[in-house]
């Protein structure tokens, strides 16, 4: 791996961390529960990208398996929150 490519990857990681900070501000502000749910979803999606870039930096290919699993678990979390909101509304 050449030197400039590593610098590009670290800049990409810094930008993704910055976007997670922005999303976290929305979690703190968020006026309703669904706002916080989709913010949590976006944090998970950003984490998948961070894991992929980190697997390039370290050269460990197995980290991509964690990205696959995370992309499935985030969907389950969103569905569970939607089910909870539906149930809360009915009662």
């Amino acid at each position, binding site marked *: *791996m*050449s030197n400039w*490519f590593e610098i*590009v*990857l670290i*800049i*990409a990681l810094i*930008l*993704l961390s*910055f*976007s*997670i900070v*922005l*999303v976290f*501000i*929305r979690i703190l502000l968020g006026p*309703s529960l*669904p*706002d916080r*749910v*989709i*913010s949590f*979803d*976006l944090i998970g*999606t*950003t984490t*998948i*990208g961070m894991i*992929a*870039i980190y*697997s*390039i930096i370290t050269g460990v*290919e197995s980290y*991509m*398996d964690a*990205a*696959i699993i995370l*992309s*499935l678990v*985030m*969907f389950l979390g*969103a*569905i569970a*929150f*939607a*089910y909870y*909101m*539906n*149930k*809360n*509304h*009915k*009662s």
Partner: protein
Amino acid sequence: MIEIISAVVIIVGVLFVVIGAVGLLRLPDFYIRISAITKAATVGVACIMIGVAFYFNEISMAFKAFAVILFLLITSPIAAHIIGKAAYNSGVPLWKKTEINEYEEYKKSKPNPEESENASPGKSESDNVI
């Protein structure tokens, strides 16, 4: 050469994700926000995965990267649809400049299923889980 392609695609994807995060912070309404992050973040992560597949240059990593893209492309719109529907039904307000509300007209044109559920709330709960 492969590193140049990979770096360009990864930076484009990261910019998409950052734009999605700024949109989530700045846009005025829940429904506009969910539209912003569903499109922008999915395309951004897909671009990052394409960059990873280019860099490793192996068939196994390409399959893993495309598996992630496939799962995201399938699950992200479904999750956004379900959360948006649940949010509308639980009364999250629309933006004050919103003019078209076709879901409300659709609910009016249909015979209302909510009342029959309220009559027997215990039984019909498992029928419409989502």
